[in-house]
């Protein structure tokens, strides 16, 4: 029996004793060895650590007590995993060794998951193509001349290429859903507060969320039900109870579900993406969903709002990289002031510096009211749009990204062109809502297209049910070409 790539298949294989965790982990490590030199999806792989974790599981029985028994997981390099490096894709953290483990990762490990590697990402999660990594771009397993999306590009590529069964990413403006869309995966940005951010490198704290990538909705649901929930180490993590998201997925239905879409929001979408989106709407309708038009008049201001608020928060969060507490320090600095300016000037890449400066500008005396304060007010209007729409429908759908995977270098010259990759995902973070991307077809180049489902706050369960029912109606989605 070959080693399955999905959680459900792995668990079944373990139960039937078709293979052991150490054999499965070896198979995934072999895939990494074969495909990672071409993809650059991983920044660190510790085969010895993964193998010894897997061997420890070999002696145990796969039980319901360990819902991720022997499941290999890849972790974005902006999470801390004790003893592993954590660069967040930046030179400024080169050589940093994590002194503790992020709560989200710890919960996966406690559930039996095996950390197989740390994945490439845009520096400090700022980017939509993974080209802003200080350690070179990651490539898309569907076409290595193209980007996997970003910022969690390595985590998406790792699962799409069969290097890990599941992976974790962070999503501040689309960094899980957009790469999931571009790599043909399910990716989830949970509601703000659903998952602890303790041990995750902060980018924009009013927007950042941790979420899973998987080949199926069931896999993503399993990961989220394990890692969601209150954490005393993160005051923003919610005390709401975590439902068992996987329960009832097999019987979830679209019958009578009211699904909203906003026609004006869809302007400017690549024609083939629009076509796949329209086909997905037809599938939803034929499964009994009731489609209705909703108005989200302020979503068109989400990009401007986001690019004032997120950089403002980043300029504050990234002040800690000062050449004093972390790895890099400029060698030729003579004063304290020079340690700060030179370490930061040389340690940060161009996009991170741009965003720090944007945020510094928006928060500076004389500009705060016109930029930061106003953006915060528009954020409220965007949030209000969704609140109003959810009076008419249970879920809102859109394409996840306006395009399929684009070529490396295609959008690096102009920041705005790159930022537009996230026009459908940004408003969801601004409103704090859960969003899920599920594959809904291929374009004529054979590249995946994603359908975004947006739910009411903390209604991840509803989203998983709809995505699962949609998946069944859609049929099996192909895997990226390069498989073992």
């Amino acid at each position, binding site marked *: 029996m070959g080693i399955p790539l999905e959680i459900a298949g792995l668990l079944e294989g373990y139960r039937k004793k078709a293979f052991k965790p150490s054999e499965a982990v070896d198979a995934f490590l072999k895939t990494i060895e074969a495909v990672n030199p071409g993809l650059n999806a991983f920044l660190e792989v510790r085969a010895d650590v993964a193998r010894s974790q897997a061997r420890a599981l070999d002696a145990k029985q796969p039980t319901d007590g360990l819902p991720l028994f022997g499941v290999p997981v890849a972790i974005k390099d902006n999470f801390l995993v004790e003893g592993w490096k954590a660069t967040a894709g930046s030179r400024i953290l080169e050589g940093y060794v994590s*002194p503790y483990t992020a709560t989200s990762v710890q919960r996966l490990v406690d559930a039996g998951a095996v950390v197989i590697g740390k994945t490439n990402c845009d520096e400090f999660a700022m980017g939509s193509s993974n080209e802003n990594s200080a350690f070179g771009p990651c490539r898309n397993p569907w076409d290595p001349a193209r980007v996997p999306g970003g910022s969690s590009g390595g985590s998406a590529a790792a699962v799409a290429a069969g290097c890990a069964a599941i992976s974790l990413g962070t999503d501040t403006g689309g960094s899980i859903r957009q790469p999931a869309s571009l790599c043909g995966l399910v990716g989830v940005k949970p509601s703000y507060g659903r998952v602890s951010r303790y041990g995750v490198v902060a980018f924009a704290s009013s927007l950042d969320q941790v979420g899973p990538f998987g080949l199926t909705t069931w896999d993503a649901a399993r990961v989220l039900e394990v890692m969601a929930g209150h954490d005393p180490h993160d005051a923003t993590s919610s005390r709401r109870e975590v439902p068992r998201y996987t329960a009832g997925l097999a019987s979830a239905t679209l019958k009578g579900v009211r699904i909203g879409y906003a026609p004006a929001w869809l302007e400017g979408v690549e024609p083939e993406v629009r076509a796949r989106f329209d086909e997905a709407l037809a599938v939803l309708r034929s499964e009994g969903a009731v489609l209705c038009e909703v108005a989200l008049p302020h979503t068109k201001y989400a990009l401007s709002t986001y690019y004032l608020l997120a950089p403002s928060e980043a300029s504050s969060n990234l002040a800690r990289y000062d050449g004093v507490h972390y*790895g890099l320090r400029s060698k030729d600095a003579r004063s304290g002031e020079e340690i700060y300016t030179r370490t930061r000037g040389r340690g940060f890449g161009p996009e991170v510096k741009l965003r720090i400066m944007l945020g510094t500008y928006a928060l500076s005396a004389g500009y705060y009211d016109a930029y930061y304060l106003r953006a915060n007010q528009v954020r409220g209007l965007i949030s209000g749009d969704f609140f109003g729409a959810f009076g008419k429908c249970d879920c809102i759908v859109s394409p996840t990204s306006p395009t399929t995977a684009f070529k490396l270098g295609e959008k690096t010259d102009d920041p705005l062109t790159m930022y537009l990759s996230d026009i459908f995902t940004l408003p969801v973070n601004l409103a704090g809502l859960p969003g899920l991307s599920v594959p809904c077809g291929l374009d004529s180049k054979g590249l995946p297209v994603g359908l975004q489902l947006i739910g009411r706050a903390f209604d991840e369960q509803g989203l998983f049910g709809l995505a699962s029912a949609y998946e069944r109606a859609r049929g099996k989605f192909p895997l990226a070409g390069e498989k073992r």
Partner: protein
Amino acid sequence: MLSREEVLRIAKLARLELASEAEVALYQRRLGRVLEHVRELSSLTVSAESSVRHVPADADAFREDVVAPFPNPGALLQNAPHVQDDHFVLPAVLEPEAE
């Protein structure tokens, strides 16, 4: 478009050394491009009430402020570029007085 001087002022506030005139010109161009776009927000009518968000928050996120020592402070210090006796080492903050 921001002036060269404005870019240098922001870089100074952000404690970022811009190494060359080419780098200053790059940020002048890119900052200008983004700021030009975000100006669209000034055309919207907003009020103080606009910033109210419709996300249910936990009623009470407060807790007692209890000190919990970090179990492994050595691992934290190991990541610093220059440490001596459990302290971060920095150049003197106050310059010796000129003769």
